[in-house]
């Protein structure tokens, strides 16, 4: 045991002291937060500006096509497809005379093709205008229409998990987000840390230090020490990320203007109600948005999610990294060999990720169930399901079964890889495939 501990220590300290580790650990949260804010900033400001000439024989569309930050609508005379660009317009929108009895097309011509989002926003505006016009011609007054439009802003769907008295507000969007994020994180880390184990084993083999070490410790101890040491590195990185992200967000909150902070606090104290309509007016839109976000995030069962995340990260890591170690042990100098041998390991990881994407939307299909039990995919898929709640989406026995199978799974892969590793690590100059590796694993060697 002392020897495994020494190996774990070495694997851990050499990696944690490495400059690259420190860089990634501290830059990654900054990068993620930067990306989120950066992309938000870019979408709000940095896009192209369009000036659209509209030909409208109907007359009622004009009121609905209001200028936005990105689009200016103008209704000039004497314009057609031949002269719009010489008159300084980027696009021309030609509307026919709308007739409620038959389908008609309207045409947009552009110098540069328009993005889908912008197209959709224009067609929404026109279709709404037509709808309003039809309602008005059916005898509904404009004031009634306006109040109907407002109604949709007052009512919102709130779904609850039914747990008797302790019913809790649930949020499918949040569950999907958490499920997706944790599945993706496990997917990425399986690759990063799995290949790290593989490269570590390859390093020991190609440096020819393997035989020196296994004259002091058993090959299995060396392999296990490496896997545990690198796993500890991964865990350290996660914990540092969680700490960094929470501190960074609270620091970010502290940098908000004081009155905004006060509004958010008031909203928190009053549970989102700021003394009726007057209160609503007091809270600015940004304060409402921040409060909403905090309120939504607080809905999730974080201790359960983080606990399960750590379990499934470690379980998945142990399950796959042992296989990566086996591959590393049979590879000679040529990294090309590693590529082809890795294929049977990376395929299930990629598949599981694809399944996870489906499961985040539909947590209770038979595919979701089986994929969350089978250890090849359970680390990612089960996390996607757990986000929807335990025991409402995943029953306790399913969770227990999945965890048990994963533990059995990694014990098996570790045993299997130990047998392959033991033979492979001392084998030089021989090209090996999975068939040979299985033969090593299941027949007596040395």
């Amino acid at each position, binding site marked *: 045991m002392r*020897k495994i501990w*020494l*190996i774990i220590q*070495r694997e851990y300290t*050499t990696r944690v002291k490495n400059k690259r580790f420190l860089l990634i650990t501290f830059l990654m949260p900054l990068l993620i937060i930067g990306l989120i804010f950066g992309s938000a900033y870019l979408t709000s400001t940095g896009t192209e500006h369009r000036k659209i000439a509209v030909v409208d024989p109907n007359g009622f569309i004009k009121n609905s096509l209001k200028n936005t930050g990105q689009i200016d609508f103008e209704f000039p005379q004497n314009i057609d497809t031949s002269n719009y660009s010489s008159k300084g317009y980027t696009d021309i929108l030609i509307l026919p005379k709308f007739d409620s009895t038959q389908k008609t097309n309207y045409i947009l011509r552009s110098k540069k093709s328009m993005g889908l989002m912008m197209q959709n926003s224009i067609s929404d505006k026109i279709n709404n205008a037509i709808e309003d016009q039809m309602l008005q011609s059916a005898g509904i007054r404009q004031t009634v229409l306006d109040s109907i439009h407002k109604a949709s802003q007052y009512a919102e769907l709130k779904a609850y998990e039914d747990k008797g008295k302790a019913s809790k507000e649930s949020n499918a969007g949040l569950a999907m987000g958490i499920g997706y994020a944790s599945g993706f994180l496990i997917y990425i880390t399986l690759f990063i840390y799995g290949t790290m184990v593989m490269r570590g084993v390859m*390093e*020991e083999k190609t*440096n*020819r*230090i393997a*035989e*020196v*070490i*296994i*004259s*002091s*410790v*058993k090959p299995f101890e060396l392999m296990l020490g490496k896997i545990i040491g690198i796993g500890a590195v991964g865990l350290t990185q996660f914990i540092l990320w969680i700490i960094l992200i929470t501190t960074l967000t609270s620091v970010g909150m502290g940098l908000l203007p004081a009155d905004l902070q006060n509004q958010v606090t008031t909203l928190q104290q009053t549970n989102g109600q700021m003394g009726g309509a007057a209160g609503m007016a007091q809270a600015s839109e940004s304060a409402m948005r921040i409060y909403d976000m905090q309120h939504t995030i607080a809905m999730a069962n974080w201790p359960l999610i983080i606990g399960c995340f750590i379990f499934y990260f470690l379980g998945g890591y142990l399950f796959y990294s042992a296989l990566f170690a086996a591959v590393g042990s049979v590879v000679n100098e040529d990294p090309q060999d590693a590529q082809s041998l890795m294929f049977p390991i990376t395929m299930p990881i990629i598949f599981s990720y694809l399944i996870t994407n489906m499961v985040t939307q539909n947590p209770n299909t038979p595919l979701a169930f089986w994929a969350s039990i089978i250890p090849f995919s359970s680390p990612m898929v089960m996390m996607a399901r757990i986000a929807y709640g335990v025991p409402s989406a995943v029953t306790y026995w399913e969770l227990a079964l999945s965890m048990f199978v994963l533990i059995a799974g990694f014990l098996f892969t570790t045993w299997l890889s130990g047998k392959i590793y033991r033979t492979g690590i*001392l084998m*030089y100059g021989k090209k090996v495939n999975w068939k040979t590796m299985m033969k090593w694993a299941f027949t007596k060697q*040395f």
Partner: protein
Amino acid sequence: MRHGFSRITNIFAFKFLPMDTLLSLQHLKKYYATQKAVDDISFDIEKGSIFGLLGPNGAGKTTLLRMITGIFYPDEGQIMLEGKPFNPSEDISKIGYMPEERGMYKKMKIGEQALYLAQLKGLSKADATEKIIYWFKKLEMESWWNKKVEDLSKGMSQKLQFVITVLHEPKLIILDEPFSGLDPLNANLIKDEIYGLAKKGSTIIFSTHRMEQVEEICDHIVLVNLGKKILDGTVADIKQQFKENIFSIETNQIDHISDNPTFSIVRKEGNKVFVKINDGYDSNQVLTHLINNKHNIVAYNELLPSLNEIFIKLVESTHATARAFQNI
């Protein structure tokens, strides 16, 4: 029942071993799918001796050494260390092994690396540090502590390998081709250390196919080929065993010497005549003959075969046998 029986045989084995035997291999076998890597090999190694394990490439030396170091388990046979059955997990700290395929972590600092490997052998951190400093001083490596292995030359890292192998003062030191890549100066340095360790009571197994080193260093040798032991004895005995009764006679009247009943001439070279003593005669009779015939003898020496010659002769003959068998 079976257990009791084997204990009795162990007691017998212990009794029959001379008290100064450190390691005893008894009918070791190790078969791979395609070949018999070690096929029924037995020999004893005396405490404090420098033992040469010789053989051409692929003879089974490395497999044999890996069994002695506990890396492989023998298919059959037994290894006795200090009279007790060898138990890898316990006895591993009594052995220092420098394999032929040896290396270091390239990016790790040399001091830390030595410390790590010494601790893996069971030394405490303080103990290991003290011993590393002692050896680094002794072999003028003190300035290396914070260097990385990738900055060392091949010879320098070889020296480091040697220190790491002997650091924990093992009773049995196994060196597989320890001089490959060393310049003559460093080779001598290491050679002196090997003598020193043997004098202090360590037993050294020295595996190589470089015969001149074996002749110089080893007390006792075993030659293996194709998984079998084909020679076992002290260097002096083996030379006696393989001598061909050839003598060199140095004289200033080289033309006067001719074939006669006691010897026949093999060849002449400068003022030396090489002769083979005929069956039924000994060297004294040859000398008597030369004196009686008033030859002016300056020097008279027996010519012993070099280990290299014996090695080549034996290996070629076993290969020939192996080939003959393959043809059947």
